[in-house]
């Protein structure tokens, strides 16, 4: 006798129905089908908006647990929860266009994010200098192409000799595009395979299976 698991089987039925319908609608020109898929997609955006809230609740639960059990460094978690609460309250009271919200966003969040991102400048420099050494044949190719593309992104060098720009653009437009396309095609095939496995209920990690 087939066991019926309400949660998993109903969830899978929804996934299958929506997935197949959306895929078919892309290729078939039927107005009624188009209307159904349009509704499904707008429901999808509503669910996605709710999932942002779920993410926030997850954050509160995880960090709240650490504060209540006084784990090592729990004061950091407390500061996070405090900042989260203040920002949410201001956002709810005055929307994200409110000066207080904009102040927090542009004077706390953005600078701290960009500060960490800017570490990349130092790390890229040290990684490039360390790695771009002519030790092997491949290393020589990497070295020469890397320098040429760096020069291409230095406009002043292009003004000194126009050939740098032509070579750099060729490297980006031909070998780079060829290699990137190969990876993109393989990735797209992988996405088809993943979608198929989900629709055929062969993907174990989806739907908690």
């Amino acid at each position: 006798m087939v066991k019926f698991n309400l949660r998993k089987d109903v969830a899978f039925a929804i996934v299958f129905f929506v997935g197949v319908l959306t895929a078919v609608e892309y290729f078939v020109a039927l107005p009624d089908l188009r209307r159904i898929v349009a509704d499904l997609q707008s429901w999808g955006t509503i669910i996605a908006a709710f999932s942002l809230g779920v993410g926030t609740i997850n954050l509160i639960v995880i960090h709240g647990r650490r504060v209540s059990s006084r784990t090592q460094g729990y004061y950091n978690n407390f500061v996070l929860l405090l900042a989260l609460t203040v920002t949410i309250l201001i956002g709810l009271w005055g929307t994200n266009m409110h000066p207080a919200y904009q102040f927090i966003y542009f004077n706390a969040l953005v600078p701290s994010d960009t500060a960490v991102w800017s570490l990349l400048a130092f790390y890229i420099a040290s990684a490039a200098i360390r790695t771009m050494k002519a030790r092997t044949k491949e290393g020589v190719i990497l070295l020469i192409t890397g320098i040429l593309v760096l020069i291409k992104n230095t406009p002043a060098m292009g003004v000194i000799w126009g050939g740098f720009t032509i070579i750099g653009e060729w490297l980006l437009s031909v070998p780079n595009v060829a290699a990137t396309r190969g990876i993109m095609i393989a990735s797209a095939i992988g996405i088809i395979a993943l979608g198929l496995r989900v629709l055929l209920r062969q993907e174990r990690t989806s739907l908690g299976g």
Partner: protein
Amino acid sequence: MSMLSRFQKMNPKVLYLLVLVVVGLPLIRPINLPIGVSRYTELFHSQVESLKPGDVVLVSLCFASAKAPEFYPQMVAALQHLIMKKASMVFVCWLPEVTPFTGRLFTDLSFDKRGLKYGTDYVDFGLIAGTATAMAAFARDVHKTAPADVRGTLVGDLPLMAKVKMATDFHLLMSFISIYTEDFIGQVQTPYKLPLVTGTDGVSFAGTLPYLASGQIRGILNSMVGTAEYEKLLKMPGKGTSYMDAQQLSHVLIITLIVLGNIALASTRALERSRRTKE
């Protein structure tokens, strides 16, 4: 220890200090190094230049707040051009963290002082959650997916939206996207075959070029370089131009150190070979 070996074993902190000086000094005291214009920026510029007054442009934002220094000057330059062309603009954000930038753009570019009327010349829908699903839904039926704008005004009460019901009603797609590029192209550009120009960050630029080669993207602004080039075309120097000295000098520093490092490596190897031959 010889100079060459010392160079090869250079403490990374010395390198970080050099980068800091080379990047920091030109920001304080600009040198005004020359800037050319690449083919990618020219394509972006000509696509926007071909707009007629009243044409509607969908401006999409989808980048992490950490990349604001790369994307914000791009958006300022591109929107300046759109204002010059008297194009109408519909703003949409696909990530929650990018929504405050639209308000700042309106303020920094003085939309109101320039006579642009909200609701008639530009509309801001804020965040539409769901990335690929949201993009597909928005392209299919704008009014259903975005029933109200970020100020709470119903879409039917916005005069601009009377002529925009779906993706094909936009004359140009302009996106500032660092992630979900393939989603936007796959869900909005390709199904409706719309002209798309995009601003990217430096990391994503190489990965966006296949779309330019296939004609799905009509022009690309390559991070800070693209912004500076665009400002040059518009004859409106801004943040992009002022940051280029720092970027160019840092590139020169890295190239110099790479070349010196390889000279040091080659010399060390030659010395070792001759030492072994003597033995």
